[in-house]
């Protein structure tokens, strides 16, 4: 059951998609004089594989439509994968039903993006933290649980006098802290953070990121950090993966990926970031075109229409995985 492997999470060939049409009547269309059945499917996650090492921070970065949030929600089994496997601490949880997942749920938790939607507006903050403790039998009853919750909330920076208030009485940054405390309430080993600072002001982002790093050092859990901001990711990650249209196009140790990006999309992302030095946009060429829709995936390599280095083979065949170094891999024909 609990083999001490180095990986806390192993994802293999994960696929996730959503049907937009509901049933036969929606799908049948007249085309070219014939009746055809047109299923509209959003191909959100298209066969990805990666590992998160115990105690590490692994980040997945990408823009809209890249499937990073869907990946997060699939790994934590808010939605069941269409295919592929999810292995947590050596257990294959892919097909676990609710009863089997219950003990696993204590070990993996999630921090959400929108501080204004991630807390129940009708619950007092202390109860939001205490209820999971009682539910998972970590504490005997609500009284004891509330006491522990007050401690935990203090640890994340919410003062004891405030704990009986309702979420709307707190600022965005404070709500995010409460969300972090909730994730910690059950002592998980693995936390997925879905864009936890994107909705916050810059100076608050820094506070929350520091808090997350401090807590990780103190409690020793592993993170899967989802973000669209490469700068944020550079500070906190050990491993970085770049996603585009449901594929991981490049992944490796942070230093490797940032110093030596091998995928044209990674390069484009790095070039697009406005820099405080003020000269990045002038120096670099902005990448052309729009992100294609996950409903109509391009042929071959998904990035070929926008890639400045595209070759004929890029529009025909999806590249194979190539290793640049031990843990740095890329999917690109250029290598």
């Amino acid at each position, binding site marked *: 059951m609990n083999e001490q492997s180095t990986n806390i999470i192993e994802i293999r060939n994960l696929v996730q998609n959503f049907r937009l049409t509901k049933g036969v009547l929606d799908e049948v269309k007249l085309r070219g004089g014939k009746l055809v059945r047109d299923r509209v499917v959003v191909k959100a996650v298209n066969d990805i594989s990666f590992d998160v090492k115990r105690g590490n921070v692994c980040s997945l970065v990408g*823009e*809209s439509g890249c499937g990073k949030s869907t990946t997060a929600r699939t790994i934590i089994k808010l939605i069941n994968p269409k295919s592929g496997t999810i292995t947590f601490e050596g257990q294959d949880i892919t097909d676990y039903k609710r009863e089997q997942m219950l003990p696993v749920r204590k070990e993996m938790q999630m921090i959400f993006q929108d501080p204004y939607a991630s807390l129940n507006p009708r619950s007092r903050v202390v109860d939001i933290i205490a209820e999971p403790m009682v539910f998972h039998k970590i504490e005997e009853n609500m009284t004891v649980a509330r006491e522990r919750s007050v401690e935990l909330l203090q640890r994340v920076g919410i003062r004891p006098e405030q704990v009986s208030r309702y979420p709307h009485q707190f*600022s*965005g*940054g*404070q709500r995010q802290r409460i969300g972090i405390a909730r994730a910690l309430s059950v002592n998980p080993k693995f936390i997925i953070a879905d864009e936890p600072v994107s909705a916050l*002001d*810059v*100076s*608050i*982002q*820094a*506070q929350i*990121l*520091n808090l997350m*790093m401090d807590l990780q050092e103190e409690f020793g859990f592993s993170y899967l950090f989802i973000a*669209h*901001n*490469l*700068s*944020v990711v*550079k*500070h906190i990650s050990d491993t970085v993966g770049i996603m585009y249209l449901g594929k991981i196009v490049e992944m490796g140790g942070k230093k490797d990926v*940032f110093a030596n990006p091998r995928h044209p999309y990674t390069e*484009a*992302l*790095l*070039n*697009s*970031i*406005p*820099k*405080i*030095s*003020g*000269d*990045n*946009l*002038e120096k670099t060429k*902005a*990448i*052309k075109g*729009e*992100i294609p829709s996950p409903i109509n995936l391009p042929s071959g390599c998904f990035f070929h229409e926008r890639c400045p280095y595209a070759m004929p083979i890029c529009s025909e065949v999806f590249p194979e995985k190539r290793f640049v170094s031990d843990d740095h891999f890329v999917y690109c024909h250029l290598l």
Partner: protein
Amino acid sequence: MSEREKILEVKNLKTYFYTHKGVVKAVDSVDFDLERGEILGIVGESGGGKSVTGFSVIRLIDEPGKIVDGQIIFKGTDLMQKSESYMTTVRGKEISMVFQDPMTSLNPVYTIGRQLEEVLILHENLTREERRQRCVELLNSVGIPNAEGRLNNYPHQFSGGMRQRVIIAIALASNPDLIIADEPTTALDVTIQAQILKLMKQLSQETNSALILITHDLAVISELTDRVNVMYCGKIVETGYTQEIIRRPAHPYTQGLLSSIPNIDEEKKRLSTIPGIVPNMFELPAGCKFAERCPYAKQICWDKEPEVTSLGNRHEVYCFFPLVGEDK
């Protein structure tokens, strides 16, 4: 640096919001000006007053807000003295605005050609054919491929980045002298944001429109603007040439903002932060609003509001102990 003509002078602007919990002084005594063709940034965090400043300039403040005092002198005329019907002739024609959310800034039931045309019908005297020509020109200038064909498309047929381009086209339709852009790229993906920012800079140079760019992102400010106003709790705390301020910030808040930005070129274990949170806007402290979070605050900072200190070369700071002379 030659003195260009001033097209906007804002003096002592005060915009307050009267809510049931009390008065929020969203913009509290703000002064700045803008030259023709210049790009001015207004930077600050939520609640700092930057968006409200932008809306105040074109007098788009609704209940419970009110522009309580001040002068907004646009091309020599004080807009505060003018009627609402006068303002409708100014808005869209001489001053136009680009809003933050491209998903909701366009009316979903009209084609974008129609929405573009509307501005022209309202403010220009052109024949139908001339209008259509102009619409195509505008779409081309913002980089929308196949412009002629796309005039008949509806907003939902465009992606977020494309919609923002359309909105910029609408803003430019009447050759305004001033464009106010409120967080125009915040809702867009990074690669699209880069495209739009480059576009805005290029268009501003080509058309010689002045641009007020409101954003919380200092890096965007650095890439795009000539000068910048840093706002905190409704007041300007520092103003000056952008590169100067970024290299030699004089106000502790500006310095705090700069060091809390995760910088892709640097490696740090922990980000420096500005301790504490923004004060409650209903209970603003007396004295300097930043005192409670300022590492350098002394007694006088709590007692009196700082007055302006001029550091030369249009660099001004509102602080009793400016950080001038500190190299970043």
